[in-house]
C-alpha cells in the first residue's frame, strides 16, 4: 500500500468527508486553527523573548513560563487537531506538497526540542531566575523555538502557494 493510497483512505473516512463536503466546516476549522496560531503562537514567541532576556524582563522567567504553559498546551492541541482535520480532508492534495512535508518535519522537530529542553530548561524555570545571567541552554532553547515557531506558520501559508504542475510558488495574481 503506497503512501498516496493511505492518503486517499484517510480522505475517504466519514469524518474527513464531512469536513471536506459540509458547507462552512472547513473554513470554521481553519479559522480556529489560525486564531490559535495568532493567540497562542504569540505567547510562545513572548516566552522565547523572555528566555532571551529581550522582553517581559520585569516578570520572572518562572511566571512567564509557568503562567502561559497551560494556555500554550491547550492552544497547541487545538491547533494540531484542526490542522490534522484540514490536512486529512485533503490528504491526496497535500501529499505532493513539499511545504506540507516541511511543516510536518518542523512539527517533529518541535517534539525533539521539547524532549531535549523540557527537562533542562522548561521544567525548572525557578533555577533560571536564580542564575546571575540567563543560562546559555535557556537562550539556545528559546532561539531554536523562535526559529521553529516562525517557520511553521510560514510553511503553513506557503502550502497554499504550491502548484504541482510547476513545482514552485506561483505569482500572487495566479494564486487568486
Amino acid at each position, binding site marked *: 500500500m503506497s503512501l498516496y493510497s493511505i492518503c486517499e483512505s484517510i480522505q475517504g473516512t466519514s469524518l474527513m468527508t464531512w469536513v471536506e463536503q459540509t458547507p462552512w466546516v472547513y*473554513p470554521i476549522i*481553519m*479559522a480556529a486553527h*489560525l*486564531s490559535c*496560531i*495568532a*493567540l*497562542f*503562537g*504569540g*505567547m*510562545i*514567541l*513572548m516566552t522565547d*523573548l523572555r528566555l532571551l532576556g529581550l*522582553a*517581559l*524582563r*520585569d*516578570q520572572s522567567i518562572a*511566571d512567564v513560563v509557568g*503562567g*502561559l504553559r497551560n*494556555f500554550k498546551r491547550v492552544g497547541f492541541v487545538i491547533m494540531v487537531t484542526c490542522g490534522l482535520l484540514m490536512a486529512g480532508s485533503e490528504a491526496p492534495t497535500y501529499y505532493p506538497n513539499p511545504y506540507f512535508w516541511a511543516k510536518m518535519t518542523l512539527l517533529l522537530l518541535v517534539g525533539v526540542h521539547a524532549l531535549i529542553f523540557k527537562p533542562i530548561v522548561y521544567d525548572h524555570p525557578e533555577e533560571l531566575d536564580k542564575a546571575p545571567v540567563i543560562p546559555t541552554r535557556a537562550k539556545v532553547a528559546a532561539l531554536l523555538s523562535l526559529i521553529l515557531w*516562525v517557520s511553521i*506558520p*510560514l510553511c503553513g*501559508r*506557503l502550502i*497554499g*502557494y504550491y502548484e504541482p504542475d510547476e513545482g*514552485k*510558488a*506561483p*505569482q*500572487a*495574481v495566479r*494564486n*487568486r
Partner: protein
Amino acid sequence: MQIDAMLAFLQSNAIADLLNNTEWGFAIAECFHIVFFAVAIGTIMIVDLRLLGLAFPRTTSAKLLHDTWVYTLIGLAVTVFAGMALFLSAPRMYSLSGWFQFKAIALLVAILYNYTVHYKVASSSPSPVVGVVVAAISILLWVSVVTGGLFVGLLA
C-alpha cells in the same frame, strides 16, 4: 465613478507591480503580515489573561502592559503596513469583498478599542468584573479580525 477612478489609480502602483510580478513578493508580504500579527495578538493576550485572572497573579495588568506595549505596537505597525501592501496588490478585488470590509472594520474597531478602553482599564486597577468584560471583548475583536482575514483569502 470617483471610487472606480481611485481604485484604478491605486491599482497602478509600484507595490502592486512588485507583489504581482515577482514570484515571492506576495508570499513574503503575507508572511510578515501573519508573523507580526501573532506577535501583536500574543502580547495583547498576555495582558488579557491577567485581566481575566487566569495568569500572572503576582503582577498587575498595568505592569504587563508596560512590559509588552512596544512589541504590540511594532507587531501592529508591521501587520498593518504589510496588509496595506497586500491590499494595494489588488485594491479593486479587495474593496468589493464583503469579508475584506468586515475585516477592515473589525481591525479598526479592535485597534481603537485596544488603545482606548483596553489601555485605560489595563493601566488601572480594574475590578475583576470589569477586567473580565474588557478582556473578553478584546479577544472577541481580535478573533473577528483573524476570521475576517481568513475568509478574505478563502473567498477571494
